[in-house]
């Protein structure tokens, strides 16, 4: 097993955060959260899990097009970190940050439509799963090549700084993505430019099948912070309040003009890289132990009840609400159909608005007439009528 997963096991001191380079703030911000907010955090985590469970069901019914990616056991890191942002802030999620997107206002209906490649999905069937964004609501769609979103978010936050806006950006990278050149160039640039950017490294023990020990020789990822001249803090990623606190501190530093922070969230990927992955490479017992001893929802429920005095009924109320939301969203999502073929040709550029259907396409003559450039480039049809 990766040497550091043991270190990161349930024995990890919970709710605290180890520091590296910065001074710890006073009373944790989480102590100032209202009861509503405390319960809201639980709602987002539950909603994430319920939605993913629904997606598994749809996947088994082959209604999902393409792969399915789970964040089971990592809900706290997504939700707690996104919760530390203001509405005007922008984050860039990764494949396992469904929770962050929900917190930022992504609708379960959108997620379901995306996974089922529906015509009315946010990307109209162009991109997969949770690869979509909305700058209004404050999240930017990722692309598959790992690390690329770090430079992009450096530019987003550079703009905040240049315009003197009171806005912060947050970008997620996995343990594996830290090995990419894009991660390095992006964070170094952001650090030099003192961009208000929080870089959250989700250390979930694996990159696909690769344990962290084969990804880096560093003891921990926050050890990279000093090399970029930025503060680094590590926290228990399965303690939603600890995640919220460590992120909030970084966000506040960014707001104060102190630039970039690196946060390492210690968590664990309980499911395979994607549903197809049988996790044969995982040492026996490791997954069970994390499930048994370190499930972020179980842990948070215990605190809600024991520490904050919520009643089991209140908790179940939230579970019920999440279930209802997902049920309704699923019904609606299933109703809509696939995108129309011709839509594939629109919006590569603002100008021209659409590419030309190629001349050899069935009934293309009819289609071509509907377009503004019947004499399209590179089409056999241009020099005479043949082929129609």
């Amino acid at each position, binding site marked *: 097993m990766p040497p550091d997963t043991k270190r990161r096991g349930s024995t990890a001191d919970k709710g605290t955060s180890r520091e590296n380079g910065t001074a710890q703030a006073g009373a944790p911000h989480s102590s100032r959260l209202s009861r509503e907010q405390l319960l809201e955090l639980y709602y987002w985590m539950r909603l994430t899990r319920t939605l993913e469970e629904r997606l598994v069901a749809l996947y088994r019914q082959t209604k999902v097009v393409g792969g399915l990616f789970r964040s089971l056991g990592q809900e706290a890191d997504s939700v707690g970190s996104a919760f530390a942002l203001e509405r005007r802030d922008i984050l860039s999620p990764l494949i396992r940050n469904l929770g962050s997107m929900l917190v930022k206002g992504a609708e379960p209906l959108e997620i379901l439509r995306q996974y089922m490649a529906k015509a009315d999905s946010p990307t109209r069937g162009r991109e997969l799963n949770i690869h979509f964004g909305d700058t209004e609501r404050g999240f930017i769609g990722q692309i598959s090549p790992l690390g690329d979103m770090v430079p992009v978010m450096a530019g987003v936050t550079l703009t905040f700084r240049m315009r003197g806006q009171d806005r912060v950006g947050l970008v997620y990278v996995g343990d594996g993505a830290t090995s990419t050149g894009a991660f390095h160039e992006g964070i170094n640039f952001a650090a030099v430019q003192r961009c208000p950017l929080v870089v959250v490294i989700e250390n979930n023990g694996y990159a696909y099948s690769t344990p962290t020990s084969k990804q880096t020789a560093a003891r921990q990822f926050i050890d990279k912070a000093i090399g970029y001249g930025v503060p680094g803090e590590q926290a228990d990623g399965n303690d939603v309040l600890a995640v919220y606190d460590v992120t909030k501190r970084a966000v506040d530093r960014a707001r104060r003009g102190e630039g970039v922070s690196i946060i390492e969230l210690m968590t664990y990927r309980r499911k395979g890289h994607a549903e197809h992955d049988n996790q044969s490479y995982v040492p026996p017992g490791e997954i069970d132990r994390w499930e048994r001893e370190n499930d972020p929802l179980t842990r948070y429920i215990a605190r809600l009840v024991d520490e904050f005095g919520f009643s089991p009924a209140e908790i179940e109320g939230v579970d019920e609400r999440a279930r209802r939301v997902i049920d309704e969203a699923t019904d609606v999502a299933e109703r809509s159909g696939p995108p129309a073929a011709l839509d594939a040709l629109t919006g*590569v550029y603002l100008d021209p608005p659409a590419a030309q259907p190629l001349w050899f396409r069935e009934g293309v003559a009819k289609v071509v007439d509907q377009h503004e450039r019947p004499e399209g480039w590179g089409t056999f049809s241009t020099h005479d009528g043949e082929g129609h």
Partner: protein
Amino acid sequence: MAEITYLEAIREALFEEMERDENVFCIGEDIGAYGGAFKVTDGLFTKFGEQRVIDSPISEVGIVGAAAGAAHMGMRPVVEMQFIDFIANAYDMLTNYVATSRYRADLACPMVVRGPSGGYVRGGPFHSQNPEAGFVHTPGLKVVYPATAEDAKGLMKAAIRDDDCVLFFEHKYLYRRIKAEMPAGDHVVPIGKARIAREGRDLSIITYAATVWKALEAAEQLEKDDGLSVEVVDLRSLSPLDDEAIQATVRKTNRALIVHEDTRTGGLAGEITARINESSFAWLDAPVLRVTAHDVPLPYAPSLEDFVLPQTGDIVRAARALAAY
């Protein structure tokens, strides 16, 4: 001998070459114990150990560069891109460092970069690409893209034994759909030689990779419905291109249709058209035509992907227009 799939043929080539030459080793993301995202290297780790089947960090620049360094020292690295789309990250290392190394520094760089390529699998814009054009454009690199299981094995062996860098594109749609019996013995397919996939007299379809199969389907249909005798040329090697084969088929049928899955503008069909034009203009009874993908990023919804990519019906319609010209 039993039939094996296109994917198994690649694995068999890797296996045999690693047994034959201790300098051959594999490197890539998740290719070790896990056997790779598509299980192409499955079993190699157990057989050859972690010294020769190296799980790497997510660092395409790093592993392609490291392969080059090892190649300079006499090793024969085979680098896996988990999806060929990520070869874009190593574009500088491949086109600037690797491709020029013999020319500028008299430094041999025998290595293979391989990976699952191509669409028709609902992979979306970043798991379906066909990036061959940018590399065929680069002097110093060789590029192959097999369509059959036999060629997958034979070209992989040739690629590993080649003294320069060979990019080996594997079509993931064909991985498990295509099967064949492997020729006995040390089966090596020379780089740079095309294959006549079907003999014909009336027109030539010149293509490679997955669309070879669509071209063959189209040829069937054209024979049945139109009584057209269609020749299908499977290029196999994209750099160098087999000009003799291209010239021969064009001068024989006097009509050429180039088909590829890649987008149209800047795709290989342009280069091939130019070469036909230069070498055989006087033999042409009709313009050289192209059936390609539309010029858009590849969308993921089935209805969209199917529209964007070339289909058998497109080839049939284009061939009819060409024959009627």
